[in-house]
């Protein structure tokens, strides 16, 4: 059954779940993890270190806004999938991990290194932190992609 409200095109069920997981994972990586863990819990860095170029400031603002949008959109897509089909939770988690890892890697490479936005932590040797951050991103991405490949046939 794919009949939907008039103006809304039907989306293939598997696609909706995949999009939900990828968006939610990517959004959480950039909004929730950064905000809750690094800003509030550990207080390793702050929202602004006063050393940023204006272009990086604009990029960060946009990144921040898009991240919240993706988190919320991912959850509503999941709710939409749940009322239309039985959720393949394994596949959804795979997509979340892939989205999280991919976006975290992008964040590390583009925002922190290329644009020179704030660092993870200050007054310490950054290398172990950068390795842990990028390394955990790669692990999440690889595990997510493997789960997605293995659950493909059942979706």
């Amino acid at each position, binding site marked *: 059954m794919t009949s939907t*409200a008039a103006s809304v095109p039907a989306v293939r069920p598997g696609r909706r779940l995949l999009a939900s997981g990828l968006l939610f994972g990517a959004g959480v990586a950039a909004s929730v993890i950064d905000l809750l863990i690094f800003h509030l819990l550990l207080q390793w860095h702050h929202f602004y270190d006063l050393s940023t170029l204006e272009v990086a400031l604009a990029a960060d*603002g946009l990144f921040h*806004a898009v991240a*919240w949008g993706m988190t919320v959109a991912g959850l509503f897509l999941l709710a939409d999938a749940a009322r239309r089909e039985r959720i393949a939770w394994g596949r959804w988690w795979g997509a979340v991990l892939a989205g999280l890892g991919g976006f975290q890697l992008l964040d590390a490479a583009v925002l922190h290194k290329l644009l020179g936005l704030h660092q993870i932590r200050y007054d310490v040797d950054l290398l172990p932190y950068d390795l842990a951050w990028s390394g955990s991103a790669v692990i999440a991405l690889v595990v997510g992609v493997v789960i997605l490949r293995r659950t493909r046939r059942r979706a």
Partner: protein
Amino acid sequence: MIQPSGAGAHVHGAADVDAWALVESAAMTAVGAVALLYAIALWMSRHRSPWPRWRTASWFAGSACAALAAGPIATAAHESFTAHMVGHLLLGMLAPLLLVLGAPLTLALRALPLDGARALSRLLRRAPVRWVTHPVVAALLNGGGLWLLYGTGQDPDGLFALMHESAFVHAAVHLHVLLAGYLFTASLVGRDPDAHRAPLAMRVGVLVAFIAAHSMLAKWLYAHPPVGVDALDAQVGAQVMYYGGDVVDVALLVLLGWGWFAATRPRSLSARPVATA
């Protein structure tokens, strides 16, 4: 008050004190009138179908936020930029959201006699109303006003300094903040009838751009304290703007998502038997 000159005690003349007192009592009266009008409309439409209680609660909570911002917090804001920013969050973001969820126009259309309701509905379709309730225009009015206020904050003749000199400029700025916040919120997640509601994609795009601009402005303020504001106060105020703004912005995103969720409900859902595992 925040001293634009930054030096010594700035003593207002008697006429000056009168102007500030006048503006404050006018603001409180206006907020009271807005709450009273809603109560009258509820009473006038009491014979109609039940009006959701949460809408009423939302309207009065919004009025309370505006009263708080116009009264005690406005007084504290004379001394503290952080209090000023708390007031702006209440007046420009939270109060508008709560007032919009109170669906005042829908209530007015229920309460007014037929001719009055028709006149109101014609008024709402007029071109100027349509322009200012367009998300892009409303976002520019809202965000543009903030950039004008804080962007020129370091200019001793700028709007921020002027606002602390003159009670009437102060009142005008705050009225603008509330009205522009209301228009912006209504254009995105309005619950009242809107014949020209912008497409969802445009509303999401405008909101994302607004969140980005808001967070950039908060960071700019963090680094550039307005005249007469000390650096620490500006830093705390900027963080109030950044994190507090996020809370309301995420609520707006959730309401947009909820609108999409309700609109895309599959027609087959009610007819379809419950899926068995």
